[in-house]
């Protein structure tokens, strides 16, 4: 497992010396800062009128939460393995005495770390709301919110890693990831079409559409966790298979 950490460490290093990391971080913080600002204004105008609170709305109440993820998740994961393949560095990597599984896990841990770094600044919003005294902060709900965020991140990063494992270059990897995640998102949207309640529930579940709103309210719905974990394991397994297939026989 020494290989996992070594690969993860290098990958995180590579993220943070690349301009992509800073572009993503900047735009990300700007975007969510604006969303938070607008929501705060709305809640200030209708103080007490709403049943949901500001933080619940911010983390799960709007489509604005998912849209940037669909753009940034592919950008964050596209280089993981596709770049190694395009530049040829995959050859020294795969001839080192480590397994494909170690390579995939290392890359995955790096992507998840970057995901967590992206969300860390939002803790300051929580602090802001708590210190304003205007809202009651439900710390249990905050905990489940971040659990939900982590779980969605685990899902998105795993899909992105797999697409990067099968793509010839970064652009293709990003497009594939966007197609899969965007496709799932659209399936979730389809739940709003005129379909039966049962079908809608399935669509929303598969599209992750309702996951954040549940977790942001403090509800830990283990079905989502099981779904996310299943996709993570499947994606990582297929990534390992993709690397092995590259060696051919």
């Amino acid at each position, binding site marked *: 497992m020494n290989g996992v950490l070594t690969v993860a460490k*290098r990958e995180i290093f590579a993220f943070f010396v690349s301009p992509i990391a800073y572009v993503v971080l900047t735009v990300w913080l700007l975007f969510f800062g604006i969303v938070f600002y607008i929501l705060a204004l709305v809640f200030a105008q209708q103080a007490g009128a709403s049943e949901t609170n500001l933080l619940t709305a911010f983390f799960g109440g709007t489509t604005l939460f998912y849209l940037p993820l669909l753009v940034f998740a592919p950008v964050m994961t596209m280089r993981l393995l596709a770049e190694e393949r395009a530049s040829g560095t995959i*050859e020294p990597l795969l*001839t080192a*005495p480590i397994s494909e599984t170690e390579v995939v896990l290392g890359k995955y841990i790096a992507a998840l770390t970057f995901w967590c770094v992206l969300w860390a600044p939002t803790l300051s919003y929580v602090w802001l709301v708590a210190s304003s005294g205007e809202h009651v902060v439900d710390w249990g709900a905050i905990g489940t919110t971040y659990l939900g965020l982590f779980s969605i991140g685990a899902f998105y990063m795993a899909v992105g890693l797999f697409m990067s494992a099968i793509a010839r270059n970064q652009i293709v990897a990003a497009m594939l990831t966007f197609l899969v995640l965007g496709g799932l998102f659209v399936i979730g949207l389809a739940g709003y079409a005129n379909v039966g309640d049962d079908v809608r529930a399935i669509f929303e579940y598969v599209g992750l559409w309702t996951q954040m709103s549940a977790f942001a309210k403090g509800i830990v719905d283990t079905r989502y966790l099981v779904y996310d974990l299943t996709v993570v394991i499947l994606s990582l397994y297929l990534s390992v298979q993709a690397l092995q297939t590259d*060696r*051919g026989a």
Partner: protein
Amino acid sequence: MIEVENLTRQYGDRTAVNGISFAVRKGEIIGFLGPNGAGKSTTLRMLTGYLQPTDGAIRVGGVDAVRDPIGARRFIGYLPESVPLYKEMRVEEYLRYRARLKGVARAQVAARIDHVLAQADIRDVRQRIIGQLSKGYRSRVGLADALVADPPLLVLDEPTAGLDPNQIRQVRDLIRSMAGEKTIMLSTHILPEVESTCSRVLIINKGRLVGEGAPNALRTSGTGGQVIVLEARGTRAELEQRALQVQGVRRLLDVEQLEADLLRLRLEIESVAAAEALSLALAQGGHAIRELRREQTSLEDVFTLLTTREAAEAKAEGT
């Protein structure tokens, strides 16, 4: 150190390596020779575990590389052909990363890096970013990477490609300095490189092994015959006729008129016995022999002959 049996690799319909077998003993420096596209890199990539063979067996340091690829890779320091490196890293960072990846103990990493930086003569760029280095420096960073875990076997795919003459000499000196201590397998299409560094040569063409032996042995035996140079007195017609009648003389390669009745003939013969018979035959015929010597075939000739023979034969059959 390496045992390869019936190694085959196909890419779709194309067979890049076709049933080659060879063995490399500990401490040997093997030159792997062949024209571009002969299957050198594919073979080395299978040895190092980057590619899986379609068929055949590979043992590295006694470990079955197909069944236990990770175990086999521990023996190997590999320099891939195009020397792919992470351009955003500094030389020392890269080597530290590679050392850890190859399982060098944390406490020994710094000492190993110092050692290989000195070996590859790149101490002056240890803090430079790899992407900013010249090709010569990059390939020596790749060489330092191959050496960093102190593996008993080095597999170097065209280690001197893209280097200037001074750097080439340095790399050759480095390779020679490790003779006996490490087993080295290097591929190249530069012949002097083989003559100056390798103890044994494998020649590959179109995925098949077409020649094997020490550079010197190959030079004499590779063609299956030898060339002798004869200077003798007589007319051209007489000398040619007599020489070609001798058993074991295959053909006349070329003739040069030195003086009115002094000729220089280049003849291909089957073995040295033919040279002796020739000298007797000429003496009996009253032709004074001024010189009779074996011509050293250059490795280039052997190489050209071995790698074009198939095509030439096919052509001959066709006509």
